[in-house]
């Protein structure tokens, strides 16, 4: 299956050649979890603070992703 990944802020600047937020298709085995996606992207789990899947914030990294999911990854961010 393929998920559409957007890596924001400092997570987007790590040698991908892409600007933060540029969508990137990532191929994973069916039923792969969020943790598995981070492994595929070689992102240390602790570097990713927030995962938003199809607009919903997901705290459980063992949750399975679906084909076509929009996945956004963020380091710790704040503002206001």
């Amino acid at each position, binding site marked *: 299956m393929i998920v559409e990944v957007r890596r924001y802020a400092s997570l987007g600047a790590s040698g991908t050649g892409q600007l933060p937020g540029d969508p990137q298709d990532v191929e994973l085995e069916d039923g792969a979890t969020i943790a598995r996606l981070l492994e595929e992207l070689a992102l240390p789990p602790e570097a990713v603070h927030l995962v938003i899947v199809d607009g919903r914030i997901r*705290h459980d990294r063992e949750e399975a992703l679906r084909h076509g999911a929009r996945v956004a990854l*963020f380091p710790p961010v704040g503002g206001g």
Partner: protein
Amino acid sequence: MDPERTGVRMDRMLRVNMTDRSATFEPLPAAYRNRAGRWLTSSIVHDEVPASCHPLGPNNKVIFSPGFVTGTAAPTSSRISVGGKSPLTGGIKEANAGTGWGRRLARLGIRALVVEGQSTDNRFWLLKVDTKGATFEPADPWVGKKLSEAVAAIAAKSGGKERVDVCAIGVAGEHRMGAAGVCFTDREGRASRYAGRGGLGAVLGSKGLKAIVVDDSGAADVPIADKATFDSGRKKLAAALGEHAITKPKGALNSYGTAVLVNILNEAGGLPTRNFREGRFEGAAKIAGEAIFAGNKERLGHDLYNHPCSPGCIIACSNTWHHKDRSEHTSCIEYESDWAFGADCGISDLDQIAELNLLCNEYGLDTIEIGGTLGVAAEGGLWKFGDGKRAIELVHEIDKATPLGRILGNGALITGRAFGVTRVPHVKGQSMPAYEPRAVKGIGMTYAVSTMGADHTSGYTIAPEILGVSGKLDPLDPKKTDLARTFQYATAFIDSTGHCLFIAFAILDIASGFEGVVEECSGVLGTKWTMDDVGRIGKAVLDLELDFNRRAGFTAADDRLPEFMSREPLPPHNGVWDVPDAEIDKVFAS
């Protein structure tokens, strides 16, 4: 021991009467001995301003107060609170800004500067405050001028930006417009830091006070009653700010500024777009903090990290945006301003957003109110969403004070009425900030009940609802009554300390940092406050504000979001505002 009765500071109040242009120093009343910042501005508004007065009449007052620790070595503590009765909401208002101005006022031993009365000669005046006292001079040369020019000239003739900071109103304030903010100089002397919300610039304009320059040369340091406790506290806070990923050097705020939030709210479906019609903006990535960082790098040829807006800030989140020729265009494009002129107006061109931001700084306008107003104006057919050139022309109308400009300069609600628009995102007449209530329920409850009108800084529930700071809550869960209350209490305390609210990101996650803030305050004041006093003080502040608003005529019916949010589903979640009124009414019921 009663924690209210142990204070040792011998601070003063400076009372300025614009009717006869007198300036009188008074001892700080005993009841206010341990109050500062928002607690003190709201206390004086509550105790001295008739709740039924016209906000632009002689009986309203504008109160300035630095926080408990402003002027000391406490990190990130140069905030100044500005209070009064708001011409925008008709209720109490406290707006605060980061600037060296409040620090200098604190070093002069002035806990509160109260501006009252009303000039009767139809002229504008400049007030100068220094160790010798307070004096007036005519402000005629700067009336009608851009704020960058006025403020630079006032600073230059008053000893230079190293020696003074300037507070001033722009053209919008001179014309008593409801969207007029109070402008302060930043660390570099830019006219860019705003106590923006609620129209307090119009109140100063109504009094005939154009600017206040504060010179603290020769002033003594702010006295500290218990230095050991104070030092222990400030070190704990500094450690927390330096450690937390959001507030540390080259962390999220220092790298990308507050506009780093654009993408996160967009992904969460909570970025209000085209006047709150949608929760996602297709141009979000082009205007986000990451794009500002990348754009500056492309134009300047190097990484540009952000700078402190005020002395002593170790978070340093204030950005600049640069023209293609590398010259500075504007500072600061905050998240709220970026959203207001960007997503809310359907504009995805950072140069146009920067120009709108600059014009608001020059004319003395609240960027949130004006962005929200432009969104409503587009609904009303005055321009088309996305047409940045036309949006810029409309803001120039405000400077020219044309009839159209005066409507726009009085904010979203007035503009909606003038053009027959029903989709007006506001509460109590103040336009909504950059978080969509239908997608983030706790912030919607906060907008509804805030004593300030729609205001995200009243209680930043976005931290646990979206950012995963101080908890991990579901933003779509409507059960946020306790959250909305406790965050507003904690915020009212922080707003009284003189610290920037952004310390909350660190101290909500790192308990020793919050203890440090309480120790700092006790160290300065000589009190024995504990963490229990945070909630007590926060509640005391809110109780004063709620009482003022009740006397001003507000009822539960004013604690409501606009009707369209209950009727119109918001993409992408397609939910409506569904928090029951009874739950909203429980927030401050106890």
